[in-house]
């Protein structure tokens, strides 16, 4: 007998089993999530738009399909699973705001490629989740529509920019949610909200229809409770898209088939530059304890160096605002959206910074220089992977901070991404997995791998997760 209050905390795997065995219906599952949203979202602020009518319609159709034959689950691997969609993703006929007042009434006439893939796989879109406007932010405080709060402690940030997605999954408002990761934005909310969050390799997942932030950095990811769920979702989203010329032509492995494989002899690299001053020592200890768990499971651990780590943020904050300023030029208030004066402070800051570094006389000194340093940072990772299989590092130097704590110092805010940004500079994939709690607040660690080796991240993450089971923790709402 399933208490309706618990259905919304099921993993995707459990939910699919329950739907297949008809322990509960798709309508009941969707209703459980919608009920949780009604109960908690005023306090948490995870959703900007909830499409209750359409969600229930889809759930009813789903139940009809399941009634006909449970073989339908082969064709639709996410059938009946309620999901949240970050408001940066175009969803046809469903308002898409990017967290910004400029396009607060914008209704896309098309679906992003990944949204089409999610719908084809049978997932049920509950609504659009809150975010730092345009993806600019690491905390969830930069939304034009009010901040999102961390379900584990409502006085603290859930991490950003996919803040609403992180908070929504953690609080049982949906079973998984989409995110984008340009410099932190899936991994940090995943770390702050006790979730498994994937930043895929650049080009692994199509960016078509996702409002662009920095076109050579943006990646399309997702957050789930468990590693299995996360791997299953990537099987849906990954793949070449003729509508995205930067998407990889590589085939998509069956990511769930590597789960459970042994990690004996796997070489783990710990970057010495990531464990220096500024990191909360308790996080350092917890991360090393987690690495110890992997060692016990047979992995070999060695220290490595990523020598250009100390200039990664500077590199990032030249290249990304430059690409941002270019991508936001399309918001001209003519074809769609409001006037450019309506841009929030962070967006304006990045646009002007980008304009500065791209302007005549400065391009060589800043943008071109940063693009060269980018190659050095990318090579740091490639060199490291010649002697180790994966790299493990903390996802954040601090615990989830208090709302308002960093708001007045943009540079301080930027530095919360210090362990996360280099990964986007290099384009490599990284998986955040929960690795414990400090003061009741979630802590996450990144498992970083070579380009297009997500199956390796999942293999390691799965072994760790099965040993530690942090996904069983829920926020005390």
């Amino acid at each position, binding site marked *: 007998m399933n208490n309706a209050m618990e259905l919304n905390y099921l993993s995707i795997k459990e939910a699919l089993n329950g739907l297949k065995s008809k322990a509960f219906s798709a309508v009941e599952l969707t209703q459980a999530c919608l009920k949780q949203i009604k109960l908690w979202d005023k306090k948490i602020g995870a959703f900007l738009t909830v499409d209750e009518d359409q969600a229930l319609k889809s759930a009813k159709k789903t139940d009809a399909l399941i009634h006909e034959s449970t073989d339908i689950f082969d064709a639709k691997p996410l059938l009946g699973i309620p999901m949240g969609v970050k408001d940066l993703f175009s969803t046809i006929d469903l308002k898409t705001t990017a967290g910004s007042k400029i396009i607060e009434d914008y209704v896309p006439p098309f679906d992003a490629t990944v949204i089409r893939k999610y719908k084809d796989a049978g997932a049920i879109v509950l609504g659009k989740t809150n975010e730092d406007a345009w993806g600019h932010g690491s905390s969830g405080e930069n939304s034009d529509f009010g901040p999102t709060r961390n379900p584990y402690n409502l006085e603290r940030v859930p991490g950003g920019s996919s803040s609403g997605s992180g908070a929504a999954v953690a609080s049982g408002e949906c079973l998984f949610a989409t995110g984008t990761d340009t410099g932190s934005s899936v991994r940090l909310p995943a770390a702050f909200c006790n979730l498994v969050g994937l930043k895929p390799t650049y*080009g692994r997942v199509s960016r078509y229809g996702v409002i662009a932030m920095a076109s*050579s950095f943006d990646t399309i990811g997702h957050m789930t409770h468990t590693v299995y769920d996360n791997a299953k979702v990537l099987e849906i989203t990954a793949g070449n898209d003729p509508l995205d010329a930067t998407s990889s032509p590589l085939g998509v492995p069956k990511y769930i088939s590597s789960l459970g494989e042994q990690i004996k002899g796997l070489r783990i690299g710990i970057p010495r530059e990531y464990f220096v001053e500024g990191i909360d020592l308790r996080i350092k200890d917890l991360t090393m304890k987690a690495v110890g768990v992997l060692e016990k499971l047979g992995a070999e651990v060695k220290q490595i160096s990523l020598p250009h780590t100390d200039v990664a943020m500077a590199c990032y904050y030249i290249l990304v605002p430059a690409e941002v300023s270019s991508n936001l030029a399309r918001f001209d208030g003519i074809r769609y959206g409001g006037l*450019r004066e309506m841009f929030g402070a962070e967006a304006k800051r990045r646009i002007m910074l980008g*304009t*500065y570094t791209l302007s005549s006389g400065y391009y060589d000194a800043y943008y071109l220089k940063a693009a060269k340093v980018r190659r050095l940072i990318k090579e740091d990772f490639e060199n490291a992977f010649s002697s180790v299989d994966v790299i493990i590092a903390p996802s954040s130097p601090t615990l989830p901070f208090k709302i308002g704590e960093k708001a007045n110092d943009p540079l301080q805010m930027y530095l919360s991404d210090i362990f996360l940004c280099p990964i986007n500079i290099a384009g490599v994939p990284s998986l955040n997995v929960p690795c414990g709690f400090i003061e009741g607040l979630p802590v996450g660690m990144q498992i970083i791998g070579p380009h297009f080796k997500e199956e390796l991240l999942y293999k390691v993450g799965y072994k760790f997760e099965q040993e530690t089971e942090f996904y069983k923790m829920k926020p005390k709402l």
Partner: protein
Amino acid sequence: MAKKILSKEEVLHLAKLANIILTEDEVVLYQTQLSNIIGYVEKLNSITTENIEPVAQLTELINVSRDDETSDEQSLSQNEALQNTQATKEGYIKVKAVFDE
């Protein structure tokens, strides 16, 4: 290392290039904040990059092209394309006049 502070004129010039209107207070605020960030990113000057190729395409894809054909999948109807436009007339987007009468 002397920190360069952007002048008001420089900030206003950037705003013009970026087609953004700033308030008096915003100009002052951005003078400081932008200068701080620019000061920080000048760290890159300490790195030697002679003979280093800049990264243009992260995953080394080359010449990704498609056939020069229209596709229904990628096309919007006129109505769809204009559905979010505030000012339209007879299927056109209305903009401010560029030329005087």
